[in-house]
């Protein structure tokens, strides 16, 4: 899919000899307006690609930080239509924007309807942490029909055969989870990630993003040495969760993104 905004982004970051910085924030956290402001702040400070999280009641891939934020977004009344709207506002900043979502909300909303509305809002695709290509027939059709990228995950436990199959089904980029575990900050970057990326390179030339556990510029720099994108989530959410008031949350977010953005230069 040469026309995709995500593909264009990776062409640019490759030319600039750096990794892309991918930032995750849940939609509607801490409120709809503030989540839009937080996304705009992230992009201004250097995030290249935005992952808008769709808050879900049973987020099995997420650690306590993201779950706490998702719970607050749901308590604040965040609906699927809001998430798509927020993704549209994010895309309006110029940064390609995907929604990261567990599968059931998409299935319930209607796979084709979800894809059509996201595409109309300017969204670039979906990251689906609990949807593997084996089950994705309907999503493959809908994403193709509406020109959306489909970002699937791979893990250190994936067999070579599954890496090849998943890479083949994916578009935009492939999300390599750096550790066997859930989202959350970690002290050290994973020793499993370089090997996983090396195994992927043997079966695909699609861009590879590495996530789970990256929380500062130094770690981002380590990952940028072997990945096409560095994905950061919990550390960004933490800035907003820990802040005494919205302005200091946005300030903390801006400082962290500035540090991360310096890190992804090679």
């Amino acid at each position, binding site marked *: 899919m040469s026309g995709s905004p995500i593909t264009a982004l990776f062409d640019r970051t490759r030319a600039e000899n750096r990794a892309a910085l991918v930032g995750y924030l849940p939609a509607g956290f801490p409120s709809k307006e503030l989540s839009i402001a937080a996304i705009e702040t992230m992009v201004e400070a250097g995030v290249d690609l935005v992952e808008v999280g769709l808050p*879900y*009641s*049973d*987020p*099995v*891939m997420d*650690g*306590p930080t993201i*779950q706490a934020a998702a*719970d607050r977004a*749901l308590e604040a009344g965040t*609906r*699927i239509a809001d998430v798509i709207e927020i993704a549209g506002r994010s895309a309006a900043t110029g940064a390609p924007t995907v929604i990261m979502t567990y*599968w*059931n*909300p*998409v*299935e*319930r*909303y209607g796979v084709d309807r979800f894809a059509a509305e996201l595409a109309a809002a300017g969204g670039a695709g979906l990251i689906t*942490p*609990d*949807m*593997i290509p*084996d*089950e994705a027939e309907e999503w493959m059709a809908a994403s193709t029909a509406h020109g959306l990228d489909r970002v*699937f*995950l*791979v*893990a*250190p*436990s*994936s*067999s070579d055969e*599954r890496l090849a199959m*998943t890479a083949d089904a994916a578009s935009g980029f492939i999300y390599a*989870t750096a*550790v*066997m*575990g*859930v989202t959350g900050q970690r002290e050290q970057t994973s020793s499993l990630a370089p090997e996983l990326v090396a195994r992927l390179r043997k079966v695909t030339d699609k861009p590879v993003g590495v996530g789970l556990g990256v929380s500062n510029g130094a770690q981002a720099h380590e990952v940028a040495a072997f990945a096409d994108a560095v994905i950061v989530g919990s550390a960004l959410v933490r800035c907003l969760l820990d802040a005494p008031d919205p302005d200091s949350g946005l300030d903390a977010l801006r400082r962290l993104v500035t540090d991360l953005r310096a890190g992804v230069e090679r």
Partner: protein
Amino acid sequence: MTSPVPDASGHFGRFGGRFMPEALIAPLDEITQAWQEAQDDPAFTAELDRMLREYANVPSPLYEAHRFSEAAGARILLKREDLNHTGAHKIRNVIGQALLAKRIGKPRCIAETGAGQHGVASATACAYLDLECTVYMGEVDTERQALNVARMRMLGAEVVPVTTGSRTLKDAINEALRDWVASVDTTHYLFGTAAGPHPFPAMVRELTRGIGDEARAQCLELTGRLPDAAVACVGGGSNAIGLFTGFVADADVRLVGVEAGGDGVETGRHAATITGGSVGVLHGARSYLLQDEDGQTLESHSISAGLDYPGVGPEHAYLAQTGRAEYRPATDAQAMAAFELLCKTEGIIPAIESAHALAGALTLAEELGPDATILVNLSGRGDKDVHTAAQYFGLIEEPVVLDEGTEE
């Protein structure tokens, strides 16, 4: 007799499958293959049979409940799973999976539990087979089932109260999955019901199907024919699929699953997933679930902690869709009336879960009349429910603080 479902990828028609993080696909494949090999290995099946017989008190008897039958107005046969070790059908599943964990070489098991029955059974099997055991239990449930928390700890298990989400069974499953993704090298997830991602629904069915296979032979021996209906309560669906599987090929035997109707399906406060829910994906499989318009899981409600789950195993969704089995609700009040009736007519205190099956049988008896023979799976005994039932019937004064050992 081998069942035609699921297919190789774990689908029962459009239900089932694997909606799981990729990180867990390799361990699920490992279990699928190990389970396949174990089933074909006479040494494994002989060992499992021996353990069930010597340790778990299986096969359980089939009992003709004469006085209950008289009150019901039809001939009622009870499959006495309440007499198994640990007091429920759950022991069949956990011994099988714990033995499989040993075979794969995993020294540790994790489990989720709602009422604590699956947790107690898991802790028991792990003590028996020398495995480390961690049980995840929603904080709300650790409070309402304090006695079972003590039981699990006595058996050497670690009990982790889960404080996320609604702090009940579904959140305990989430937390167990989070543990598993980080510990798969050493840990087997001893899943407690016939739900979840492939191969759990099929594997748990094969481990519990002794219920129906035994009951079928016992019924033929006792009555000279098959029952008109086989009835079981449905939470996640393990005892029901264990009963139904033995009769699926007998087209004349009606299969009736009884779901927890709570305050009544029309009130929205229930756990009747098939009757009152819709198709979606939860905990790794496509099936019925209780969800809102956006696909967010809704909280379930039932007087029975073991049925208080917003999902159901995919094979039940399939049996409902094909019409081979029917699913109906019994309210809290109907279940408790049946509970009381069994206590007073037979001197058997049933689990409140199983009382839902009895309530379903009472309704069915009215419909079928006095010539009918109805087989009911008495999935568990009610010792764990004495406190809840005593409160319900106003037999004790409030409050009784079980977890602090003091009563007033």
